[in-house]
């Protein structure tokens, strides 16, 4: 691969230029077979590269698809989007890749935005890690997106999540402590209001109070957990909530102190903090699925508008055994052979 790099000095040039960009972005280059022009892919991520991008790149490499990937990071701030949009317009990539609901809305805008000129509207795009693309108004429907955008959906169906929670223990009351400033999370809570009672549990939604900057205040988390406990809640739910992902450590540790198990619907809280269990899609596999979507657009020539949003058929039941032992809430025998048991590093 390195020998090929030297055969194409202009690629090295691009690499240098991108490294010098103010947002610390960088471009990556991968195989080109010399005959095909590499497909130019422009990726915008929310909080640095994750396993999704690794899976994405590995898929394209394994399929022998020549590509040239530029990655930019929003660094948790949607305010960083406009210069990146300018850069994308200038670079004219073949495909734009966006990570997360916030990133996707900042780069691609909603399906019926009043200011389309502020967003990338005419370049094929795929999104990953968007929990509710339709409810977030990114696409019209999962089958036909209504714009040159497609993607992969990553959440396990809510009913399946509830089934896992109930199969673990017949919990009676579930609470969701959530960041009410995130549209994605609000959609999730609305859906939970129906899904939780359907599974035979009582639902308690607890929005995190806002600080002076109108942002959710992480300091209130321990108090909210104690409040949930006092109201008879038996299990806490963490949805696709970036705020809770960031403050997962304090959140899950307080929950353990209060003797409350937490369930997570995304991998970050179970892998990087101390959620007791979760039904999650594997980010790496998800990235590979995004790679397949990209292949359909770039190689097969499918119009993204006609490319249904893809979904994983299998999800991973993740159980952090150190948390389980700390709480003394052991999994039923039936889950032993189907779950992935890990330790979250709880001291």
């Amino acid at each position: 691969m390195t020998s090929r790099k030297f055969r194409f000095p202009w690629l090295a040039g691009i690499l240098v230029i991108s490294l010098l960009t103010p947002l610390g972005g960088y471009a990556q280059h991968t195989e080109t077979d010399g005959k095909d022009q590499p497909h130019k892919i422009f990726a915008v991520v929310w909080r640095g590269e994750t396993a999704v991008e690794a899976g994405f790149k590995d898929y394209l490499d394994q399929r022998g698809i020549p590509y040239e990937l530029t990655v930019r990071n929003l660094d948790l701030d949607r305010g960083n989007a406009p210069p990146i949009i300018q850069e994308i317009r200038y670079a004219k990539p073949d495909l734009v890749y966006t990570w997360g609901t916030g990133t996707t809305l900042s780069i691609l805008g909603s399906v019926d935005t009043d200011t389309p000129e502020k967003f990338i509207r005419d370049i094929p795009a795929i999104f990953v890690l968007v929990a509710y693309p339709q409810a977030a108004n990114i696409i019209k429907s999962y089958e036909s997106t209504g714009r040159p955008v497609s993607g992969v959906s990553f959440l396990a169906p809510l009913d399946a999540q509830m089934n896992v929670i109930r199969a673990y223990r017949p919990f009676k009351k579930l609470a969701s402590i959530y960041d009410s400033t995130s549209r994605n999370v609000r959609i999730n809570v609305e859906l939970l209001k129906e899904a939780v009672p359907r599974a035979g549990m009582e639902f308690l939604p607890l929005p995190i109070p806002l600080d002076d900057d109108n942002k959710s205040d992480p300091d209130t988390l321990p108090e909210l957990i104690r409040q949930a406990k006092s109201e008879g809640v038996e299990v806490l739910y963490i949805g696709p909530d970036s705020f809770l992902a960031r403050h997962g450590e304090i959140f899950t540790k307080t929950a353990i102190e209060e003797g409350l198990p937490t369930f997570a619907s995304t991998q970050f809280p179970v892998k990087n903090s101390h959620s007791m269990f979760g039904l999650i899609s594997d980010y790496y596999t998800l990235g590979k699925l995004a790679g397949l979507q990209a292949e359909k657009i770039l190689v097969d020539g499918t119009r993204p508008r006609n490319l249904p949003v893809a979904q994983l058929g299998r999800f991973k039941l993740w159980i952090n055994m150190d948390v389980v032992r700390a709480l003394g809430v052991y999994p039923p025998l039936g889950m032993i052979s189907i779950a992935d048991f890990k330790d979250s590093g709880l001291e």
Partner: protein
Amino acid sequence: MDGQKAQVEDTADSQVPARQRSLFLRLLMMGGAIMLVSQIVISWIALKGFEEELGPELNQKASAVGRALSTELTYAINELGIPPGKLVGVSEYFQHILESNFDIQYLALVDNPSGVMFEHSVPDKLLDQFPATLHESDGSHNSHSIRDIGGYLDHRFPIHFKGDSSAALHVGVSSGNIRQQLATIFFEVIAVIVVSMVITLELLTMFMSRRILDPTAHLQKVLEAGSKGKFSYRLSLRARNEIGLMVSSLNRLLYHLEQRYQDFQFELRELRDAQIDPRISQKIAALKTQASKRYGFTDQFSVIEKTPALIRVPFFLFIFSEELSRSFFPLFVSGFIPVEPALSYEMMISLPITLFMVAAVVATLLAGNLTHRLGCSRLFLIGIGCAFAGYCGTFLSDNYTELIIWRCLNGVGYGLIFNACETWIALHSRAGNRAHSASAYVGAIFAGYVCGPSLGGMFADHVGQQTIFLISAGLSVLSGYAAYRLLASSSSGPGKNAGSAPNARVFGMRPWAILFSDNLFISTILTAISTRTTLSAFLFVLIPLYLNELGHSSTQIGQMMMLYGVIIVIGTPATSRLADKIGKYFTMTVMGATLSGLGLLATLASDHLGDSRAVLISIVAVGLGHCLILSPRYAIMQQIVYRYRHLIESSVSIGIYQFVDRIGLIIGPLLAAILIQQMPYANAIAAIGAIVLVAITLSAIIANVGQSQIKGESSA
């Protein structure tokens, strides 16, 4: 001369086949016996083999399940650090494993100090024995061991808690279960033997009739006619077998005989013309006339006539294809019922069966005219076409509406084929052998009842219910092919004798008025409808649903349903002889209906008899009851037809009877649906029994009133 010819035909019909039949019967019995013995021997050897293999096989399975489960338990306890006492959902997990491994009886986790910690389905008598066996475990303490406790083979797997094996997992296999599985295999073998015997005998009968019996009967007819000086017959048969050679020799003989006769006539004419003396000339002319009167050489070739029995094999194959799905059809339908059904669940189950019957009855009514135009064989093939499309459609159906549409098309095929068969029998039978001809048709139906449900149920358990319709489609093609080969190019069909086809003109109101003013007809119709209702409600709908609820597989349901067919096939000839002997037709139908009605009440005594045994008793009683009804009812109808022969054409009377009779088939599934909405299956079956008893009481009262009226009229 016509009178003579008729006489020849009658004698040929009444005497020759009887002699041939005895030879044929002996051959059939001998062939059947040899086949039966060989099948029994092979099956016995196979069963022996199963018996030897099954025990070790089950033990191996118990070992595999036990090993996997003990690994999981060890992992949970030692690797995940879950204290044994804190294990959760163990009994539920055991239950889940037992549900998917029905040949394992129980699972238990036993701890040395605390005894049985978790268990599922462990018989009470064993619960106390587990801790004891744990202490005894001496040498086998650390490894998998098997013991026989209380009729169970108990597999014990030690579970090590951090190196100490104080607990054990017990996996139990019942030796009774092994016997039960052997019994299941045994019944499957019996069912296969019966079905293969029926199919073999059907095919053997067809080949014997077509290749030997019919040609020899015709040969006999020719020889009989020859002995009376009539040499007008020739046989048209092309076959490279002994019969074929004999026929061509005979034809050659007849040809030379005719040549010589013509030479003789020519010489006589020459001789007469050469005479001068008119007296001698007249004498020779008289001699010539006398010779032509004594020896007939006028007609040319006559084709071997088609017989009623020819339709038996194609018809049997069709009924076979239709009956394949009988044992599971209501269960099959239940898989198509949408989440929010338009009608009640029970109605949705019975609707496809009811609409099938409606389509069949309507097709039968409309087929009357078609038969006249197209002929039996073409109508049969159209029916097969509809049935084939129906089966394929049912196989491909993925929603309730599609299923209904395709089943209705099947129903149309069913109706057309029934009509084609009835017409064929009516056209090809003569006054003397009408009852015998009808038996070919009835026999085919019941042979289908024997083979279809049992084989269909067995296949359904192995290849899936929907695939059975593909097999049915294949069988229907075979049936169509057989019909094409055997029935096609028939000189009969349209035109000739068509007036005697059943269902011809059943639309006029007058025959209906006449028949329904006859109490005997009404009471016979009542019995017939109640019989048909029992058949379609009990056998077609309730048995599959109820036996399925009791946990029987499609194979077992099919075997139980086969019993009905077997009883009818064996019993009907005996009861028809009995009926002819004692002549009390009506009494027999009343007895039969009462027996079937009482038999259905057996399900009320399920607590004493056991659920499945009660159903079995009902099936046997209904079978026996219907045996008693079938032949006498035919005789009674003959009487009624004869009584009104001057007012109504016999085919019209029979057509009306058959139409009303089939209404019972439509009522049955609807009645079953209404009943099971209100009550459990067992009670619904009993309720049908009660309805049959009421109907038969009514029927008896009406018949008695009728008789006293007739007596009153005659005394007045």
